[in-house]
């Protein structure tokens, strides 16, 4: 990518420093001190705030009593991606946000850090805590190898069902592998976690695009059930002129480069504009700074109160000296072959839109030009409607797969679904919970069918 003014490359040592873990692991002493703050609530709110229902008070008690293996078993039994979730969960709005200590004006227990303490140790030890159930002969295909499918596959293996994942990308993990900021989690960490799932006998076939390399009809004939965990598609486009200039990229591609290609190989401009106000936009501005960009702008068409990014993410961006440009909208990206500037227009809050928020209204004559060398668009991701509509009788609502809230079963009874393609874009932990729900739904369906089949056989 040829940039108008590339920022000077940082040395590998500097990059390691700027991308260092933002939540460094706890020492044993720190874990004991932090764990001692847990009150061991009964019917604890942290459990109820966790989509996967990890028994938090129990695993903390296990750390405190020196049963680290048991604590990891408690975590992973509820959430096999407990390692990722410990690092990437927005704990301040989940378990830690629900911690009763908040109500007393105290800092909540650092549940995420304690969870990481526990699971890190198990991954480091190479211990395997789970084993597959006795083979049932049932086979399930899972489309996509992101968190939802990985979680579903793990649960299916525990029940003894075969699980085969198909993913068009070269490595499994989905957004967990490609889309998490490098200072939260490195790609290699995700693969250690996936290895644990693979060792349960989960068959992960990367480089297989369903509908291209293998047809839906083939899957339907070879498998007893199919799980859809395809997530979302490409980042939405800005729809302005100049979007295809060199130096104009989408957020996911940009983050993926930092995860997959090595930090030193990622080009960054001296001045970078990131368009968007969500968590992914924050990942981009902070990554841009860490890569060496000198000026980084966050361009958002609404005000700070409307940003969808979590408060702690916005704080992180502020600490990184990002310049926020509220109430501005890009109208055009300028440049010959590479990005040289972005033309912006100021907005004001208009009448409320469908989401209840004020739709931003451009203020005529307020255009101005911001010289930048890169524009990163961090808007929402598109729904994979094209693919989903090829599945027979699959009901969609606003591009999302409609499922039974108890079982994850879709309107086509052979298909189950979970993750971003169902919830429209949520956290890794939601995808894990929905994958688990679907696995239980599939297992229940198999159990009923085998009862029916058995009954029919005995009547014959």
């Amino acid at each position, binding site marked *: 990518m040829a940039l108008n003014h590339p920022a000077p490359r940082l040395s590998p040592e500097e990059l390691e420093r700027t991308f260092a873990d933002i939540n460094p692991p706890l020492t044993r002493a720190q874990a*004991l*001190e932090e764990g*001692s703050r847990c*009150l*061991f*609530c*009964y*019917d*604890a*709110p942290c459990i*109820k*705030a*966790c*989509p996967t229902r990890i028994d938090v008070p129990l695993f903390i008690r296990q750390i*405190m009593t020196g049963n680290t293996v048991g604590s990891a078993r408690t975590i992973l039994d509820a959430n096999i991606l407990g390692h990722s979730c410990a690092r990437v969960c*927005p704990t*301040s*709005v*989940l378990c830690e*946000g*629900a911690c*009763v*200590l908040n*109500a*007393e004006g105290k800092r909540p227990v650092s549940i995420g850090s304690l969870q990481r303490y526990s699971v890190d140790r198990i991954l480091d030890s190479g211990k395997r805590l789970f084993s597959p159930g006795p083979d049932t002969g049932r086979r399930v295909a899972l489309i996509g190898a992101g968190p939802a499918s990985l979680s579903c596959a793990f649960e299916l293996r525990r029940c003894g069902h075969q699980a085969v994942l198909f993913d068009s990308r070269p490595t499994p993990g989905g957004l967990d592998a490609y889309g998490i900021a490098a200072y939260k989690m490195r790609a290699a960490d995700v693969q250690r976690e996936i290895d644990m799932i693979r060792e349960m006998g989960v068959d992960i076939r990367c480089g297989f695009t369903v509908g291209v390399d293998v047809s839906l009809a083939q899957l339907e004939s070879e498998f007893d059930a199919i799980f859809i965990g395809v997530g979302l598609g490409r980042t939405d486009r800005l729809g302005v002129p100049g979007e295809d200039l060199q130096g104009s990229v989408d957020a996911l591609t940009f983050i993926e480069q930092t995860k997959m290609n090595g930090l030193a190989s990622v080009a960054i401009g001296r001045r970078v504009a990131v368009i968007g106000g969500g968590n992914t936009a924050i990942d981009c501005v902070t990554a841009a700074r860490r890569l060496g960009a000198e000026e980084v702008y966050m361009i958002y068409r609404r005000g700070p109160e409307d940003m969808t990014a979590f408060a702690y993410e916005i704080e992180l961006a502020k600490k990184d000296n990002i310049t926020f440009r509220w109430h501005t909208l890009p109208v055009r990206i300028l440049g010959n072959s590479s990005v040289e500037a972005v033309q912006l227009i100021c907005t004001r809050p208009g009448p409320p839109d469908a989401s209840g928020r004020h739709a931003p209204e451009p203020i005529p004559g307020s255009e101005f030009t911001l010289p930048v060398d890169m524009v990163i668009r961090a808007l929402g991701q598109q729904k994979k409607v094209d693919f989903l509509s090829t599945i027979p009788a699959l009901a969609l609502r606003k591009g999302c797969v409609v499922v039974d809230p108890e079982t994850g079963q879709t309107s086509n009874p052979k298909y189950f679904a979970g993750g971003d393609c169902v919830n429209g874009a949520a956290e890794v932990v939601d995808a894990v919970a929905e994958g688990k729900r679907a696995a239980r739904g599939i297992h229940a369906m198999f159990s009923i069918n085998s009862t029916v089949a058995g009954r029919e056989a005995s009547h014959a």
Partner: protein
Amino acid sequence: MPDLSVNFCGVRSPNPFWLASGPPTNTAHQVMHAFEEGWGGAVWKTIGEPIINTASRYGAVDLKNVRMMGLNNIELISDRPIEVNFREISEVKKRFPHNAVIASLMVESRRESWQEITHRANDSGADMVELNFGCPHGMSERGMGAAVGQVPDYAAMITAWVKEAATIPVIVKLTPNVTDIAHMAAAVAAAGADAVSLVNTFNSIVGVDLDTFSPCPQVQGHGSHGGYCGPAIKPIALHMVSSVARHPGAQIPISGIGGVGAWRDAVEFMLLGATSVQVCTAAMHFGFRIVREMAAGLDEYLREKGMASAMDLIGRSLPRIMDWGDLNLNYKTIARIDAEKCIGCNLCYIACEDGAHQCITSDARPAADLRHGPIPKHVPKILDDECVGCNLCSLVCPVPGCISMIEVDTGRPAMTWRQLQEARGKSPMCDMRDLLAKGGVAGD
């Protein structure tokens, strides 16, 4: 300004805080430093024929992240020559004439031995002697320490020998490893003891190493039971002090020992009958400096209570300790949860439900996270009609002032078990001899 000094058997001590006989009072260097920091007195590390100690010697019980809630040791008496100890006592008394110095003694159970060492104590300038009849480990195997303190006749006999020779007051230090410590106190009081100090340490094994299977502390992979002390033993020591103070045959001054680490602990011991308190574990944990806060805290407390002297505290709570049969059965309290303060941990609920009397209800907590709005407040409810007023919920509640026990007027006059039994025409007390004659309770 309140007077912190106490008069113990005629010996004035500038405050009631003494260091107990133990590692902190091993040398003049330590005791003088302690007096400089403000300790009122010190009981010298027990003097006797020098012994040889083991490594290691101490083990501890932690509570979550709090270290040394309980400490145990297998250390013996002084390993320094008798003459060195007495010479140092003389030096300390010269430099600190107004502080109480008490020589703790332990020798073999022969009249000449006890009287000889008592003479040397008289001559050293020590203010008092303390007879160590309590050490539960090591020395007891040699017929000393607790081996003496567990047999009233032995303890009385040695006390009498020492009294014949002593020109200064004699304190007898009691072991708690007996069925009834007040009985022991009465025995030595009858033999002439001027005072008692209690408690010495409890027989204990403080822990076992789960990897090596060795007890803690270990000596080359082996261990021995040791003496247990520290904050963990305070409630037992408080009871024992009060039981001695209430015994009609033991009306002599008491030096209270067991888990004292702060002024509040000292006040409790004094309210239950102690004239002075002795501290060891807390000084071993934090050093001698803790006495500054102890003295300041006591001073402030006495001012607040309008008391002129620390001596006013002694025994003040004793009239409030009664037999269970004299407690009012018609006094009623029930728990109240302050919903404003409640943080919704549900610990009161589960404690009452599983561990007590099923008097609290709690709705199942709904799934909720902050992404979808505020988390609904969760407050368990007390069933007023069911609540027996046991206190458990208020004890487990982690929020200060959230659960309080409210007195409820039952409208019934005060009535004790004793009165109830008398009204029923039954004896209020069960006569054990009767039971034995009938062949025991189970057969009835």
